[in-house]
């Protein structure tokens, strides 16, 4: 009687071609360990990099309402922005602090903020709030604060009640609240937005550097390449 060869107990038949001899447990453990260490390193590195640097308006920089910098500066950067726009936030928190230190504080450049409040109702309220903060010349302090706390679009972050709370943290009091509640600067914000549209602004942020139009989040290097020939 012929007998078919029997597999040793516990062994498996060789699978069809292609999957024969899968990786052994040791190889997989090494691959998993490398993957876990790589991701942990990446996350640690990302967190170390992303500590939010608050961009305070450096003392000694001249601010007057929505204008920051010396009136005699050789270059004027006009910025059209919406306080709810994440790209504007990226510029305000990423590039602008360096712009302030290197060009505005040294008197070479001044920046003028213009409202382009197109994302929704809370864009208008936030814009109004900046103008109200401008009355005691705290425009830029609130500007920085609002970008720092920016949340989802029209989700209550820049409701009037919340704006008053944020402003109160900056020491802005009842004068600010009544200014905001009575929409004292609503028309100003709308006028700015209309003026931007008339100048061809279609996205935010849009910059005019001595009249030259630039769209999008400018890195500091990009901005430096544009500014240096103008400030010399």
């Amino acid at each position, binding site marked *: 009687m012929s007998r078919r060869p029997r597999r040793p107990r516990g062994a498996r038949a060789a*699978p069809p*071609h*292609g*999957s*024969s*001899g*899968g*990786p052994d447990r040791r*190889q*997989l453990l090494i*691959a*998993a360990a*490398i*993957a*876990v260490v*790589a*991701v942990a390193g*990446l*996350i640690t*590195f*990302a967190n170390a*990099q*992303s500590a*939010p640097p608050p961009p305070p308006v450096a003392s000694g920089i001249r601010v007057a309402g929505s204008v920051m910098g010396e009136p005699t500066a050789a270059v004027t950067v006009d910025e059209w922005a*919406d306080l*709810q*726009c*994440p*790209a*504007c*936030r*990226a510029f305000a*928190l*990423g590039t602008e602090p360096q712009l302030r230190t290197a060009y505005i504080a040294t008197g070479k450049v001044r920046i003028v903020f213009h409202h382009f409040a197109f*994302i929704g109702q809370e864009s208008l309220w936030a814009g109004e709030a900046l103008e109200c903060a401008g009355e005691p010349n705290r425009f830029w302090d609130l500007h920085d604060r609002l970008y720092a706390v920016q*949340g*989802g*679009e029209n989700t209550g972050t820049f409701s009037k009640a919340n704006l008053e709370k944020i402003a109160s943290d900056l020491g802005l009091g009842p004068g600010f609240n009544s200014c905001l509640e009575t929409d004292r600067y609503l028309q100003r914000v709308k006028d700015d937005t209309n003026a931007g549209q008339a100048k061809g602004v279609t*996205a*935010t*942020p*849009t910059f005019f550097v001595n009249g030259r139009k630039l*769209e*999008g*989040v400018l890195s500091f290097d990009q901005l430096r390449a544009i500014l240096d020939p103008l400030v010399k």
Partner: protein
Amino acid sequence: MNRRIAAVALAAIGLLGSAYLTWVHYSGQLALCLGAGGCETVQASRYAMVGPAPVAVLGLAAFVVALALARARLRPDPPTWLLTGLFGVTLAGTLFAAYLTYLELFVIGAVCPWCVVVDSAMVAVFVLTLLELRGSA
């Protein structure tokens, strides 16, 4: 074999999604704060960069490697290191996707639909890789 083809297709989807997000990052489309999605919020957040590298580029790199490995495994009798490599890359991708999803939900407060597509593709390729490993054990 069907799993391997599915892995290639899913890695290709992830690659296309990451390529789109990379293009958005570098093209300045970020400036256009239009549309209802949270992509702009997520991409403009400070978590969109790891050092000098946009997260989208890290995703693109991971999918390029995953697609190359998955594609190479379509050949008959692929060497085992391809499956080990695919396991390592997709495990790393899945862990990082989980971290990014946590950030979107609990830190940034906005979910980017394109990121969800890309993250899901990575998780799906990882699951297929696990199934392959089970089949070859």
